[in-house]
């Protein structure tokens, strides 16, 4: 029975505080401070993001109907959210009818417990994993390890991150912050029995990962995956990948456990015709990713005979309850917004402190986990980690208006924050500017501010909170006269008259 029948609808809860990987331990500016000083990181990110930008533009430019596909993708996701209850029930029914078992998890803690229980029931102490944002979000690996189960990440970038005891910094390429030399060093140090002559050629590094994981694929009885799409109409699940590690995990083990956020459902099988065009071109900049697997429940004689689908909330319903913010749930995790974001490019993914970095992370993370869960919640800084340049909105294959969502979350933050010095300053500024006379007086005062400028008319030091600005920028001292004073002056009137006269003169000449 749904609580809507019990009376007033209740606001759904966020992901429980202190669980999973949806909150860093520092605010964005503090974390970015350190990341910005890492020259290697800056170079790695700059190179990778520029490479992928060009590729994405090439393959999206190839399709004359790209905008129509985006419109369709956006509308399908919005329609999905509007009909989420019935679609989830339909998905559950279809998966169950085809021999799968569906589990529901209110939050990451519950999902972790479900997966651990399912793995234990198989008797296996190891699982192979397909790259999955949902299981990163809930910290499944850490939970499995604490339960004595060893998770092996099989995606190359996830493997690099896991071997380096590092954290992912990108949705698609979690090791984007590492270059080939660093990866070589990690492999030499962490892969048992690796050829010590391994060089930094990407193909050779990939071959080393292939050799290392081959035996795991052949022998491990349980796999854990996420899902890119779950089709309500047919119960079909889909994983989009490149390396074949996904196919290995989805095909060879006896048991497959798929953890899927409830927003990943799609209404119809036909909808794949849209998303199989939008996703690969937006994410890796390929016309199609090398491999996509689609499976429906259990197929006798082919693949895992024991299939479990875990449907995860973990704050998604809290986001859904926000009229504006819910648009972030339309995200298909392509990472195009990260790749075009000037802030992400400089600060890197770790500065966001969440499984979901970049522009989409800045609007998704605070909604899933909240931004006022503790005093000075680091998540409250995320909506401000953007210059609102809008590159993310243009790149988004499902047209999520990320800049508008950021502005909305900023508003929610100021509304929650009570009276702050900034709010008082904003009130004061608006108080002046809503009274034209006061505004004009303030301009006169600003003109007096010329004395702040040095001999060259520049201000080179400003007090906090503007010292960060003046550390690297001069500020021109205010001019002698505002525009309105000039316009009201004899000089202004004469200039405007002369301009109008010039037009008249030109007209007369043309007539001649």
């Amino acid at each position, binding site marked *: 029975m749904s609580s809507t029948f019990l009376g007033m609808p209740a606001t759904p809860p966020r992901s429980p505080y202190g669980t999973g990987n949806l909150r860093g331990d520092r605010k964005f500016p503090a974390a970015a401070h350190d990341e910005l000083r890492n020259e290697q990181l800056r170079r790695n990110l700059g190179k990778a993001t520029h490479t992928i930008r060009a590729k994405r533009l090439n393959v999206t430019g190839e399709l004359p109907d790209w905008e129509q596909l985006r419109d369709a993708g956006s509308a399908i996701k919005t329609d999905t959210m509007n009909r989420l209850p019935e679609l989830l029930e339909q998905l559950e029914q279809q998966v169950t009818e085809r021999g799968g078992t569906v589990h529901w998890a209110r939050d990451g803690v519950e999902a972790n417990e479900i997966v651990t229980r399912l793995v234990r029931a198989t008797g296996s102490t190891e699982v192979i994993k397909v790259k999955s944002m949902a299981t990163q979000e809930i910290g499944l690996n850490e939970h499995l390890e604490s339960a004595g189960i060893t998770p092996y990440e099989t995606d190359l970038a996830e493997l690099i991150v896991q071997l380096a005891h590092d954290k992912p910094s990108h949705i698609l390429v979690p090791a984007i912050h590492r270059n080939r030399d660093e990866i070589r060093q990690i492999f030499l140090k962490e892969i048992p029995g690796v050829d010590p002559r391994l060089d930094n050629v990407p193909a050779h590094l990939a071959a080393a990962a292939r050799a290392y994981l081959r035996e795991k694929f052949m022998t491990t009885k349980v796999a854990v995956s996420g899902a890119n799409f779950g089709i309500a109409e047919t119960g079909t699940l889909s994983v989009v990948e490149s390396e074949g590690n996904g196919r290995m995990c989805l095909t060879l083990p006896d048991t497959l456990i798929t953890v899927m956020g409830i927003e990943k459902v799609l209404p119809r099988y036909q909808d794949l015709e849209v998303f199989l065009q939008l996703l690969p071109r937006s994410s890796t900049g390929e016309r199609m990713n090398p491999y996509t697997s689609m499976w429906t429940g259990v197929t006798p004689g082919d693949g895992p005979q024991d299939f479990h689908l875990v449907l995860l909330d973990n704050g998604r319903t809290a986001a859904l309850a926000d009229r504006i913010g819910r648009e972030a749930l339309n995200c298909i995790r392509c990472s195009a917004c990260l790749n075009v974001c000037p802030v992400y490019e400089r600060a890197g993914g770790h500065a966001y402190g969440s499984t979901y970095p970049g522009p989409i992370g800045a609007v998704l993370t605070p909604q899933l986990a909240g931004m006022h869960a503790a005093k000075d919640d680091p998540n409250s800084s995320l909506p401000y980690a953007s210059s609102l340049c809008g590159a993310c909105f243009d790149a988004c294959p499902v047209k999520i208006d990320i800049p508008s969502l950021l502005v909305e979350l900023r508003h929610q933050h100021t509304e929650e924050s009570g009276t702050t010095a900034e709010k008082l300053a904003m009130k004061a500024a608006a108080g002046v500017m809503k009274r034209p006379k006061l505004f004009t007086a303030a301009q006169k005062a600003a003109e007096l501010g010329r004395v702040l400028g040095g001999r060259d008319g520049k201000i080179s030091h400003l007090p906090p*909170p503007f010292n960060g600005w003046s550390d690297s920028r001069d500020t*021109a001292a205010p001019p002698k006269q505002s525009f309105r004073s000039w316009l009201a002056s004899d000089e202004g009137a004469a200039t*405007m008259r002369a301009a109008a006269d010039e037009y008249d003169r030109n007209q007369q000449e043309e007539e001649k």
Partner: protein
Amino acid sequence: MRIGLFATCLGDTLFPEAVKSTAVLLARLGHEVVFPPEQTCCGQMHVNTGYQREPVPLVRNFAEQFGDPSIDAVVMPSGSCAGSVRHQHEIVAERYGDAALRAGVATVKTKTYELSEFLVDVLDVTEVGAYFPHRVTYHPTCHSLRMLRVGEKPLKLLRAVDAIDLVELPEADSCCGFGGTFAVKNAETSTAMLQDKMRNIATTEAAVCTAGDSSCLMHIGGGLSRIKSGTRTLHLAQILSSTRTSPYVLTEAVR
């Protein structure tokens, strides 16, 4: 046409030369330029920083100042302020305004233009009789590029300027890192973006970096001044209003 000139609070107070140039340019093209005297600020900084209650009187004042039906078009030398009027005023009005404000905002929104789109789209001119014999590179500001979609319009205007040496800015569409209070709240990330922008500007060896927003130019210009660059910043309107008879006198960038 009867054009209501919105000076923008920043332009009016700190960068009056860009607004003067806009006024002169429009008058020279034969239009009546009116300056509703009680205008102040569009409230963009408030909204972008997360404040939507505080700018309600500013939004109201804007709608009142420019709602006059005798004003055919509202023109401003700023892509971001035009973006604010066209996209944010209704958000504020919907949430915290009354029916009158919502109606006022809707009316003004449809006749509000950034300078370059007004010239090219509404007046249908690209050749404005300008003369500017210097090497210039153009930075498309984010809100003009992606919120207003001005596209090639400013470049069309610049290409038609007599004697100009227009050079393409590498990675032009990357944000300069300003973003209003972003440059204060995330000053270091903003600086990293600014440094890359300045590096790209340096490769053009341009005497002038121009754009359609005084705010972004304040940011870029502040950085260029600090590193004692040979390139200075100038608003697009100042180039377009420079003529053979009354040319803009380009002083050396202060080193």
